[in-house]
């Protein structure tokens, strides 16, 4: 049978098309396109928009005009903003430090054998699972100026002699938000570090024991160095989450008393959505970006090294 050249061409074209459709590239792009579309529309575009809005004096209901860096210059001279920067750093550094130290201790405890281990582990994870806004309401009630159950217990045990003004005093308000953030974030640290601990090969410890190394030296020379990757990841994640935190402060203190616990996100919310100065609020939000950038760069460098 003679096949006409036209028909042959058509055949190979069809073959080429099917091969093209079945190729990895097309399948790949097809599979990522829904995710990509959504992320471009609702993440990349808003980010560009955030930069644009921060360069305008937009207020609620009016588009505003372009004012270059005025919002940022104004913030640099704003006493309240200075306090916000300072508070954000105090909040982030102290909670990450506490979560890491306590998380390490808790992970070492959970790595031992004891009855009902799964139940205990599950119970300890609860603060991290339950909706933060709702559990923080419970803390708000526990810190209540008149009915604080924490004061009730501390007074009853004779640990303090007069009530602590948890949320009413600038110093104690900061302590309160730090306690609650630590409470909520601790499980993430503990479980992640525990996973790192379980991945350390046991023969290493046996060898160290044969060499006569005591528990502390084993911890210092084997456990800590091998935990380093997990600790790095957990600390970087937690740093950016805490720096950008909103709910705990919003519900417990709303940034008060007298701005003592105001952090970036709560100030941005107040300025943009409560006071309606959207341009300025956007500028405050954008201060979270350098922090994000640093974390991402460190993280990438870390991942590349492995």
């Amino acid at each position, binding site marked *: 049978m003679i096949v006409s050249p036209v028909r042959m061409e058509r055949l190979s074209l069809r073959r080429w098309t099917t091969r093209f459709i079945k190729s990895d590239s097309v399948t790949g792009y097809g599979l990522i396109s829904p995710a990509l579309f959504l992320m471009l529309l609702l993440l990349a575009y808003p980010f560009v928009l955030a930069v644009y809005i921060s360069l305008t004096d937009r207020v609620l209901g009016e588009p505003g005009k372009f004012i270059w860096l005025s919002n940022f210059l104004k913030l640099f001279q704003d006493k309240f903003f200075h306090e916000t920067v300072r508070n954000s750093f105090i909040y982030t550094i102290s909670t990450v430090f506490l979560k890491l130290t306590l998380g390490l201790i808790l992970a070492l405890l959970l790595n031992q054998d004891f009855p009902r281990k799964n139940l205990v582990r599950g119970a300890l994870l609860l603060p991290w699972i339950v909706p933060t806004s709702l559990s923080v309401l419970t803390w708000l009630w526990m810190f209540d100026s008149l009915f604080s159950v924490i004061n009730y217990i501390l007074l009853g045990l004779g640990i303090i002699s007069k009530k602590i003004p948890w949320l009413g005093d600038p110093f104690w308000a900061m302590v309160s938000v730090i306690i609650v953030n630590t409470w909520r974030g601790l499980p993430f640290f503990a479980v992640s570090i525990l996973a790192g601990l379980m991945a350390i090969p046991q023969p290493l410890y046996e060898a160290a024991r044969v060499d006569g190394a005591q528990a502390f030296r084993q911890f210092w020379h084997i456990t800590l160095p091998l935990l380093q990757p997990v600790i790095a990841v957990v600390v970087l994640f937690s740093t950016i989450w805490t720096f950008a935190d909103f709910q705990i402060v919003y519900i417990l203190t709303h940034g008060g008393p007298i701005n003592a616990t105001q952090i970036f996100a709560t100030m941005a919310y107040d300025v943009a959505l409560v006071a309606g100065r959207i341009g300025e609020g956007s500028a405050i*939000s954008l201060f979270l970006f350098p922090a994000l950038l640093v974390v991402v760069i460190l993280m990438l460098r870390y991942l590349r090294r492995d």
Partner: protein
Amino acid sequence: MRRRHLQIIKRIFGLYLPLAAFLFFALFPFYWMLISSFKSNPELYNLRAKRLWINNPTLEQFKELFRKTAILRWLSNSFFISFLTSTISMAFGIMAGYALARLKFPGAEAFGLATFITYLVPTTLIFIPLASVVKSLGLTNSIWALVVTYPTFLIPFCTWMLIAYFKSIPKDMEECAMIDGCSRTGAMIRIVLPMAIPGIVFSGMFSFTLSWNEFVYALTFISSTTHKTISVAVPTELIRQDAYFWGELMAASLIGSVPVALLYSFFMDYFVSGLTAGALKG
């Protein structure tokens, strides 16, 4: 004999006591939430009562809550939004995760990197401009505002988790299936997906939890009572003009916390293994 005593003492001080302290710290707020919601108002605000126990348990607070507020509506909003967004995100996450784990195409690495970075972008960085995007889409004050925005943080999470899972599944079986005439998509659906179930269950469940707990977007985009989710409605609708009805607040918090706690207790093993796998793979 003395040695054994010493061991027991060491175990008590080195394990049980510190563990008990951690458990107390983690669980006391839930205990307080629980007992506060079953107390009557006179008992709740009586400073002379035994405050760490319920003397006269009552369902008064729950009754008031259901009578006075739209709590059922808030719960159903939360269920609807969380279920829908976690399903959408899982579907998109499976697709993207599979593509990034298995297929070689130009730009794959860049997309993988972008996913990872977006996973770290805090919602508080973009909530202000996103509010105006939501407005121009005509979705302000509707639960659909949350249905479209939640996947922006859920998809990166699912994709990132699932890349790791898909990579841990050996390629051989899939390749055999493809030699036997299965298409790429067929191999993915019939061979890879069933093997990735633990990872899929974990990321779906965790997405559900993340949606259920989300606060910033829900607070910003939705202002009418009937469209709020439970995690925003309780702190905003139940506190009026600085008047705190603690009994009702605690009852509502309990109701809002139970679904996630239940979900998570059923899938505890998946959860811990998924979480630890995720932490290790970073």
